[in-house]
């Protein structure tokens, strides 16, 4: 089994990229792989707690919580989050916040990296 690092940049909640990346992470975990998941830019919106579910609208919070419980490390760019007013106190439990050094380090010891650029 290997380690997959997914970097998702500049995607808002509801974006196709974030949905794809979370579903790919689920499939990788299902197959026994370790997954690191990095979000930066608008993607840091994924880390906010108390997201509300609407019919026919992407809702990833429960899936992210489930993946965290299965050992996936979700990390948000701290500067990107703070710039958007997302603070530590309204960050989902278990969702880490670091500088981009964390992402760089994760990619260095990953077996595979999928870097998804901005939309």
């Amino acid at each position, binding site marked *: 089994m*290997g380690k*997959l690092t997914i970097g998702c940049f500049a995607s808002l909640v509801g974006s*196709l*990229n974030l949905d*794809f990346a979370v*579903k*790919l992470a*689920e*499939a*990788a975990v*299902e*197959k026994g*792989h370790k997954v690191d998941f990095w979000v930066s830019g608008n993607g840091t919106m994924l880390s906010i707690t108390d997201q509300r579910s609407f019919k026919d609208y992407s809702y990833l919070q429960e899936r992210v919580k489930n993946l965290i419980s299965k050992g996936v490390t979700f990390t948000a760019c701290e500067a990107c989050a703070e710039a958007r007013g997302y603070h530590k106190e309204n960050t989902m439990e278990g969702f880490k916040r670091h500088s981009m050094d964390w992402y760089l380090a994760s990619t260095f010891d990953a*077996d*595979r*990296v*999928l*870097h*998804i*650029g901005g939309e």
Partner: protein
Amino acid sequence: MKLAVFVSDYRITVNTLERLKPEKMGIILVQNGVYHAAVKENGKTSPILDLNADFYALSEDLETRGLDPSKIDSRVKVVNYGDVVDLIFNEYEKTAWL
């Protein structure tokens, strides 16, 4: 190098893909990229499919767009998320996202 390229858009020029010269290339069509596997313009299939590569399209993204996986171009293999994970780990060494 064995390279898997994710194509997530339909209105993409093939120029970038043509410049890539890996030893082996897989093109994984996701999101709106799956239209490359199904749509013909003026009777012609997408020029992406003429590249020297293996082609895959994500079944969920086909179905979301009302595209019948059994009716896409015969050069494209339909895959699910689990298959994509296997492609990433077993068939290709690097990935790129377009």
